[in-house]
């Protein structure tokens, strides 16, 4: 692919089917990267036109105007105006419009025309428009607008032929692109442009504006104040079940595969240290993250289907008021929900939130949602310390404590976002909630598959780079210096991690933590559940059938109940996950929010563990 190849930029309103069109044009050849310094996805794909020309197609974030309101829309503006530092300066702008919803798109075309670059209009989803009895005189529309107009059906074979032919035509008469001219329109200009668009639309189209009857009938239930919430809860329930149940075979297979790899290393004629590096550092480290891939794929499957259906905007609508009480945007709902599986996909999916501040607030509190990696730790401690009996007749005490830990996480997240809204963003305008509720559309399997593939590769790349280096660092801490010859205690007790654990003893003593807990917390940074295995290593319990049971027995003889409860409180809040921190750095484009998250969670964890320990002591649980 030559960088000198002409660039065609796709611009359009949200929900106009632009991404489906991009997928139809470029297929699997597309590349997704980030624009430098920001977290907006840059999607570029090379194609060869019928005339044999190599063209780079760029898919730009959906927008109603070049007057950008979010980081995504700023990218659209900057690329269209040729203001980006990189090489994407469009030779042709293709404005994509939903043929059954042209009104706002025509105003956008009028605005794009002012930029001074070649513009054309592609009437997308013509098949749906026809079915709904909409007729558009494309030729007249082209004359009125003063730009070429073609029809396209992204999902049908041959549906993009006319578009490709016209792109060829336009690029053949390629003029030296004049310097882009555009000034943010004021209210009067917007009114004028919309009136002009309305006039043109009335002249060229028939049947526009009627409500899609299927959408109207579905919304009568799905946006009903009560039934809508019930359906939303049901969808979430299914989604949750799926993430946990369907992912299990895949997760087991991945674990087995990494275990097998570890076994291969074990059998190799290598020094013990090299074996340990390969097995525990490299394979174990990457394995502990890659194991979440099935959950992430399933989660994004639901998110993409709901997004393509047009339901996501409805979910945000239904939840806006409820989330708003805590200072969160309606769109924060799905990312926070995803974080119950794992904060990593949750934080990745905050991209659906337009406003930067709302998005940052969501990213900050997402790690407080009880992720699945906390479950093994909770299970171990609860099993060892909380008696297995019933309270109030039929409620299991152990389950009640588990439920309590989830609740504390949620309440903590709501409080933090409330405080962030009041303290950090104080005095700044609250972003209004205004979004189009598009007509429902059936998701297309091909587009879905491409979307899922993109998500999975982004996640795996991350596991292979930032996360891997964190894992190696943690392994180094836990392995060096090496134990002396004939050492009686487990190797980790001689390591740097043990020294750190002993050194911070005075700091954690008020929480009732002994040095063994401190040491276990360090490898626990790799992934929360690793702390379980580390505790086993430190208390010198060799692996076996019921290893978790025996760790539990060892703990219950060595820890007081107050210590165990403080440890649980710590785990609700502590930033015990290097991968999550790495993803926050990646998604926020800098170190700042990583440290903000790390320190506020650390402070909360310390406070929670301290209070828990002291209260438990006072109640005689020492």
């Amino acid at each position, binding site marked *: 692919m030559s960088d000198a190849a002409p660039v065609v930029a796709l611009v359009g309103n949200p929900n106009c089917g632009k991404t489906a069109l991009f997928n139809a044009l470029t297929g699997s050849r597309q590349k997704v990267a980030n624009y430098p310094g920001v977290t907006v996805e840059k999607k570029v794909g090379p194609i060869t036109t019928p005339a044999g020309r190599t063209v780079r197609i760029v898919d730009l974030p959906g927008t109603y105007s070049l007057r950008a309101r979010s980081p995504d829309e700023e990218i659209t503006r900057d690329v269209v105006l040729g203001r980006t530092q990189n090489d994407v300066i469009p030779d042709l702008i293709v404005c994509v419009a939903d043929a059954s919803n042209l009104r706002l798109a025509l105003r956008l075309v009028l605005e794009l025309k002012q930029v001074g670059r070649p513009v054309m209009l592609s009437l997308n989803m013509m098949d749906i428009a026809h079915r709904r009895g909409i007729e558009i005189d494309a030729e007249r529309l082209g004359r009125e607008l003063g730009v070429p107009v073609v029809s396209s059906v992204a999902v049908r074979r041959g549906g993009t032929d006319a578009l490709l032919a016209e792109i060829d035509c336009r690029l053949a008469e390629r003029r030296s692109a004049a310097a882009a001219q555009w000034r943010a*329109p004021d209210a009067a200009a917007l009114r004028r442009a919309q009136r002009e668009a309305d006039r043109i639309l009335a002249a060229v189209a028939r049947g526009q*504006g009627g409500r899609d009857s299927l959408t109207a009938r579905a919304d009568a239930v799905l946006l009903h104040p009560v039934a809508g919430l019930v359906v939303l809860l049901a969808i979430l329930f299914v989604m949750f079940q799926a993430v946990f149940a369907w992912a299990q075979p895949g997760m087991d297979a991945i674990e087995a595969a990494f275990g097998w790899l570890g076994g291969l290393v074990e059998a190799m004629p290598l020094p013990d240290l090299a074996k340990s590096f390969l097995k525990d550092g490299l394979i174990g480290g990457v394995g502990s993250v890659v194991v979440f891939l099935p959950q992430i794929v399933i989660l994004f499957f639901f998110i993409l289907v709901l997004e393509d259906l047009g339901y996501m905007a409805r979910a945000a609508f239904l939840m806006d*008021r409820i989330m708003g009480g805590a200072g969160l945007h309606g769109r924060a709902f799905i990312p926070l929900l995803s974080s119950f599986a794992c904060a990593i996909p949750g934080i990745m999916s905050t991209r659906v939130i337009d406003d930067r501040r709302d998005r940052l607030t969501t990213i900050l509190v997402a790690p407080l949602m009880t992720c699945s990696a906390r479950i093994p730790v909770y299970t171990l401690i609860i099993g060892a310390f909380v008696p297995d009996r019933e309270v109030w007749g039929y409620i299991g005490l152990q389950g009640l404590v588990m439920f309590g830990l989830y609740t504390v996480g949620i309440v903590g997240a709501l409080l933090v976002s409330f405080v962030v809204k009041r303290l950090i963003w104080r005095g700044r*305008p609250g972003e209004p909630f205004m*979004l189009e509720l598009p007509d429902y559309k059936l998701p297309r399997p091909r587009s879905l598959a491409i979307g899922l593939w993109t998500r999975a590769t982004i996640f795996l790349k991350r596991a292979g780079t930032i996360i891997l280096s964190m894992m190696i660092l943690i392994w180094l801490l836990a392995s060096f210096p090496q134990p002396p010859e004939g050492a009686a205690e487990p190797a980790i007790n001689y390591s740097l991690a043990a020294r750190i654990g002993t050194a911070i003893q005075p700091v954690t003593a008020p929480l009732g933590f002994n040095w063994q807990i401190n040491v276990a917390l360090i490898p626990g940074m790799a992934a929360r559940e690793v702390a379980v295995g580390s505790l086993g290593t430190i208390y010198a319990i060799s692996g076996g059938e019921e290893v978790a049971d025996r760790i539990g027995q060892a703990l219950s003889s060595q820890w007081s109940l107050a210590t165990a409860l403080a440890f649980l409180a710590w785990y609700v809040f502590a930033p015990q996950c290097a991968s999550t921190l790495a993803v926050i750095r990646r998604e926020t484009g800098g170190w700042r929010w990583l440290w903000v998250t790390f320190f506020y969670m650390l402070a909360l964890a310390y406070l929670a563990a301290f209070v828990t320990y002291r209260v438990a002591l006072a109640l005689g649980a020492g």
Partner: protein
Amino acid sequence: MSSQPTIALGNARVGFRGRILAIAAGRVAAGLPASELERRLLELGFVEGADVEVLHQGLFGRDPIAVRVAHTTVGLRRREAMAVLVSAGA
């Protein structure tokens, strides 16, 4: 010209049908500067003369509302909808 009284869209009930008379962002204590709120409403199609219908509302505080404006359905909070002045009947 309609003889119907002018009301703010933010006060309209579900089922209300009418026509937009004016966008008066200055009278709303929204989080945004008035000129910005006005332009955002315009960009979503809230232009004088457009037909509107309130389709749905949320459970708590009857907020937000889903409004059909000309050819599009838009969800927004009542607070911002106060900037849209409408007359009943269309």
